[in-house]
């Protein structure tokens, strides 16, 4: 399993590098945003900056999922791996783990940096410890949902369409989050979506002709 994961990472190294770069860039922008708009009310700036960030991240996650499946089919990687003592289940699991790792590479530093900055610069709104947790979990689930969508569609279509699917997903879920908040309901909805998407992906992958 470890070998399979290593192989996936090596094949998609660009995404990991991009993830680190993106993460660093967003943190840098956040830091400068906080420094330079301390006096003039953070929220609007923060809000306006988060939209492009969200778009880039969602496209990034779903395109990674799509790219993993697309390169597999294109380069016949699973076809080759099936001649080795490796099951399709293992291949897909390794793929998903790699995707999760990439998402974490982006989100973990962001969450940590965001928390620190918020603590340093935030207006005197009491922060529930739970809020950080909820926020990060929902963000992770959102990112993972986009990734799963990319994974599901990437086998049959080109790379571009699934990535755009991520935007549609965001447009659906962000208003939902705004209405419902970051509570357990949104988490369940996202989890259900993720599970359905993964099951569909697994079914397709298991039965496809290699």
């Amino acid at each position, binding site marked *: 399993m470890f*070998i*399979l994961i290593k*192989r996936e990472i090596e094949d998609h190294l660009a995404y990991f590098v991009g993830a680190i770069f993106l993460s660093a860039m967003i943190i840098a922008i956040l830091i400068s945003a906080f420094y330079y708009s301390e006096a003039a009310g953070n929220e609007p700036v923060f809000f306006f900056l988060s939209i492009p960030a969200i778009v880039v991240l969602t496209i990034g996650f779903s395109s990674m999922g799509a790219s993993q499946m697309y390169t597999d089919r294109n*380069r*016949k*990687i699973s*076809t*080759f*791996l*099936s*001649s*080795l*003592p*490796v*099951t399709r289940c*293992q291949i897909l699991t390794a793929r998903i783990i790699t995707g999760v790792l990439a998402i974490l590479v982006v989100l973990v530093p962001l969450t940590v940096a965001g928390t620190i900055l918020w603590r340093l610069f935030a207006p005197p709104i009491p922060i529930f410890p739970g809020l950080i947790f909820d926020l990060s979990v929902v963000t992770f689930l959102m990112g993972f949902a986009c990734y799963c969508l990319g994974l599901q569609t990437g086998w049959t279509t080109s790379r571009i369409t699934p990535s755009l699917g991520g935007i549609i997903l965001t447009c659906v879920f962000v208003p939902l989050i705004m209405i419902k908040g970051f509570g357990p309901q949104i988490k369940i909805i996202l989890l259900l979506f993720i599970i359905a998407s993964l099951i569909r992906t697994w079914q397709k992958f298991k*039965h496809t*002709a*290699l």
Partner: protein
Amino acid sequence: MSENVVEVQNLAKYFDGRCVLDGINLKVPRGCIYGLLGRNASGKTTTIRILLGHERPTRGRTFLLGTDSTNLSAKIHGRIGYVAEGHNLIQNYRVGRLVKLCKNLSLHWNDKFFNHLMETFRLPMDRRVKDLSMGMRAQLNLSLAMAIDPELLILDDPTLGMDTVVRRQFLELAIDVIQKQGRTILFCSHILSDVERIADRIGIFAAGKLVVDCPLEELKTRVRKLRVIFAEAIPQNLYLPEVVNLQSQGREMIITAVNWNQQKQAILETYKPASCSELPMSLEDIFIECTKPISIPIQVEKWEM
């Protein structure tokens, strides 16, 4: 052990409504070297892909090493060496990286043997797979398949692209594998001379059916081509069972029949031919006759070693 390493039961496969395999029954016992012959697109590769679980059958079941093909575990895959038609290697990788991947994922890797093969074939480790010639890719594929010391070797046109010298090396390798006890080989080839050299048993595919399935040495005795000349015209009501091909010209008739025996000879005699002589048939001749549209199956049920 006398179990069947490969078993195919009533296999049928349709692609978009087109019938590619029509009721295939096949058994390959342990230790057998089975040569699959057939014209292009006759169903050989499809059968192999279904056996390995790469495709699902429309009807029927297939078994490899006692396990249903739709349910093959990683362990079973580890006991099988497979060389696919067109060579399923990851084209973008460098040879060295591909080898390392195989080495790390295989259950059983004979490093010494593999290095010996790489030296014999003189394959470069640092070149990308897509930059190798077809023959070199064939050699690489074969080396990877053999390095795991497989119980069962499935080879789909393994010598495609190989030059004469390398093909001979491959044959010698195959002989080495055969000499090891209990190894089974199932291979497809268009090079009949190679098949004749190493196969124990032959199967010939034609139009989705297995028209021949018998020990190689028996094949030549079972298929006969006779030149029959009649004193006057050819009798109108001439009927002989299991005739694969019949050509008549004037007073002469050329009959290709299978499972020829005394009985059929006696039947022929009743038509009082002026002369009846046998024309020699090589494996190639037999193959061409058997893959013509009208074919009678040549089946030998019992396997005798």
